[in-house]
């Protein structure tokens, strides 16, 4: 008897609480910045592409929906010649973001991706690349990496000594 009354009271109380359901699409729900939605490719603080085409996202992807093909610029930077995500297969698991050593690939709180034609869910690099740095503002892989690129010679990265003069007689 008491439990039935308590239930009735709870239901009555719930009538006055604010609804979680919103009138989508007129009204948008709040999705936190780390929500796993549409995937983007970001740029480093200098505005250069962060993706170095290392293929780790592609290998981490449980549904094998990411294709990356490597290219090298004149300046020696590795970057993606092809970067394709087949969103019709993507399960938004975020493994690619976890695997990415350069913070290039990031998931965003955008979930409005429905299409009538499945073919339109195949995103190429130009559809994925954004102009900002996404969630991680400071990280610049090439400042840490030992590989020389145009504008950063050997010995100029973080925690690097000047290149050794092998002709010197000093030990």
């Amino acid at each position, binding site marked *: 008897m008491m439990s039935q009354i308590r239930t009735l009271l709870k239901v009555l109380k719930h009538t006055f609480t604010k609804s979680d359901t919103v009138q989508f699409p007129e009204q948008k729900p709040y999705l936190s910045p780390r929500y796993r939605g549409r995937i983007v490719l970001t740029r480093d603080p200098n505005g250069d592409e962060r993706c170095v085409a290392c293929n780790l996202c592609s290998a981490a*992807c449980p549904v094998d929906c*990411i294709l990356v093909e490597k290219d090298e610029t004149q300046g020696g930077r590795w970057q993606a010649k092809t970067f394709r995500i087949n969103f019709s297969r993507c399960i938004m698991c975020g493994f690619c973001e976890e695997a990415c050593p350069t913070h290039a690939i990031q998931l965003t709180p955008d979930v409005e991706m429905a299409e009538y034609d499945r073919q339109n869910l195949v995103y190429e690099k130009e559809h994925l690349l954004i102009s900002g740095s996404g969630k991680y503002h400071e990280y610049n892989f090439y400042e840490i990496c030992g590989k020389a690129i145009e504008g950063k010679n050997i010995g100029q990265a973080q925690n690097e000594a000047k290149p*050794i003069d092998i002709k010197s007689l000093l030990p």
Partner: protein
Amino acid sequence: MTNKVTLYIDNLSYQVPDNINLLQACLSLNMDVPYFCWHPALGSVGACRQCAVMQYQNEEDTRGRLVMSCMTPVTEGMRISFNNEKAHTFRATNIEAIMTNHPHDCPVCEEGGDCHLQDMTLLSGHIKRRYPGIKRTHNNQYLGPFLNHEMNRCIGCYRCVRFYRDYCGGKDLNVFSSKNNIYFGRTESGNLENEFSGNLAEVCPTGVFTDKPFSKHYIRKWDLQSSPSICTHCSIGCNIYATERGGIIRKINNRLNQDINGHFLCNRGRFGYQHVNHENKISQVWSRDHQSNKTHALDNIHAHIKLKKWLNESNARIIGIGSPRSSIENNAALHKLVGAHNFYAGIAKNELTQLNLLTKTYESNQINLLSLKEIEQTDTVLLVGEDVTQTAPRIALSIRQMTKNRGINKAEKFGIKPWQDEALRNITQDTKSPLIIINTHESKLSDVAKQNLNLSPNKQLILLLEIETYLVNNTSHCSELAISIASDLLNANNPAIITGTHSFNIELLSACLRISAILKKQKNNSGFYCATSAVNTLGLSLLCEPEQDITHLIESIESEPPTLLVIMETDLFRYFSDKKLTTYLDKIKHIIVIDQLITDTVKMADLVLPATSFSEQNATLINNEGRSQRAYAVMPANDMRQTPYKWLAQHNSLDDDHKLYQYIQSIDSLLQPLSQFKSINKGDFTSARQPLRSSARTAFFANVDVKEYAPICDDKSNLTYSMEGVSAFRQKTLDNTQYKITTPVTGVWSPKWNSSQAINKTSLEDKNESDLAVKIFNTASAVPFEIPTAQQKTYNQPLNTISVCPHHHIYTNDDLATFSSSIGELAPKPLIHMNQKQANYLSIKSGEKLTITSNEYQISLPCEIHNTIADGVILVPFIEYIRLGTNIQVPSNYTDGEYDD
């Protein structure tokens, strides 16, 4: 003979052979012992300190002592612990120290995913970097078109210099500076000169040396579709893994075959694959319309209709030209189509004569045919008339290893094992097994040669005949040189004669064969090896009667031109001058060319059928020692390409494999063993061509169609174009109870071992890879044959005649390899070489042009003086030499005056 010893690892007993070190023993028992500096072919030096294990005196000993397993021989009753806490800590601390200076490069390193350092770091348990300090850096060098140099990544294991200098005899890579500053490179930037430099990419445990052409179309190792194949760039038939993705061949990896290439390939084999990706590859059927003088593409059905029409024309006289670089199956299909009398080998006259002599002698069992492995085990080599470094480079590497045998024997007396590299070198010093080279000019092997004789072909022959006489009746009428060489051969336990067909000198070859035959009578262990021109030259010659070569064919075209000429994978313009050939080919009504690339011959064709490259076909190839080997396709054929025998299948009634192999066997009894390839498709298991972690499968073709199609089925072999099948790499289980799977292995991988070093985890006895190779010359059934003796007139020629000889080069000799851009970059300019004396005699200076003519061709090339060339010899580039043909003359206006010998 090796005996087995029992050793106890972590209190379990194991049986291992007694001639190996503890590290190799542990690896072959499938234990994950980390190491860097050890290499099965290079031995141990104990430089990296990574393979430490705990060794105990006896059962009571509980303290033990740390030993480097690579430096420790296995002994009976030995007790060690691999899992010991102290040993594990030692290994983990050691790798942490090694890694302090290693850059944060893995995402942008070509080695990533195929990296021994990555594997070993994880294996030793060093997962997080604690060192916060400054990293030392190094400037990089330009090392030529084959390799990238990234010295920051170096861990100082010394493998590169040990391989390059000690194993290959290279001079231009060295180690500089000391301690943390240690630097592996050249004195200054420049092309690495050695022919085996490409192996550094596999030898280096990390990414200091990486494959440059691969980097241009880079794919991570876990995405590479791979299959066992055979290198098609020379006659040795080295075993390779061809790797592919998206219809592009990405990289060639070594496939361990202890009998042939072992762990190393030459640069031509490793980088010569780019013809498959070349823009000039043929992918459609092209037909020439004579009325409109236009070329248009045909579909499959119309191509066959046209083919049928031409084949069935009344009074049709059909001639086929087979190819030395195409498989036995393809050549046999053409052989059936045109008939035995109309089938000609796509090689020149003098080469086919040489090949017929070789096969007859091999069949007669008068000589022992060696494999490369056996060459490495001989103790004296007489190398005659062949610059093997340029024509079949892998042989040169084996000969170089042979010279170390005397040192190894010397060391054995002191109880030093062959793998104890440093001690062995200390004892060896300059001791070398005798290598005697007789050639027209000095070769790259001369630094290890006991005698290096640069002689004109006539003098070479005289010397060989003297050696032969001495070997037969021990007379002292011979020259001292001949006696010294003959006694070197007689003093050896297992001497070898190595020669080749590239001197195009039949007398020289038969002299070598006779010497080998005489030696075999006296020493049962003596051997013989002969390099031929292309991967299947020997196989092709078995399908042809004598005189069925293109030189004879061209002569016969003049008198009675055929109505239809079917040319398979042969560029006739390599053999004849343009003018001569064009006039002859114009007499033929229809020309069909089956080829993979647009060559000059293809441009003359009325119908072009696109052929598959080595990477798109399953093929049987017979190498120069009569070893028939099976190569598997790595990708499905591109576009309209088909294996030549499939193009012809509808027209020669060999429409299934069974009939084809039956036909092959009916051509020559020597081809009987090929019957085993009939049943090759039927196995219990299929093998996957793709690794387990093959990625992007739902995205690769999504730009074309988001729908996913089933992988293409390979009905010709039991390999799949997918990840389905037994895993690519198999190893023995600890208790040796592996189920025998006979499907071919498609790659090198082992759990926790992602790099190619995983090959060291295979068991020592397992010969999985070479199971499918059959030697066609079996010793049981000998067919008697007498090797022809020398004709008097040839070696009685006056000595002052000038001999024009071919000059070979590793990067220009093979026609397909020259399509590779990296190889083309290193191809030398065509030059004529001679010595100063010869130049004075012809009154010509270095850089001036010399004209050489023959009956139908003329070359005019600048000269270069080299004093290591024999007197009376003019070296012309191999390609030009072939086109010159016979009756070569140096213009008479040069030859006035006395020639003083």
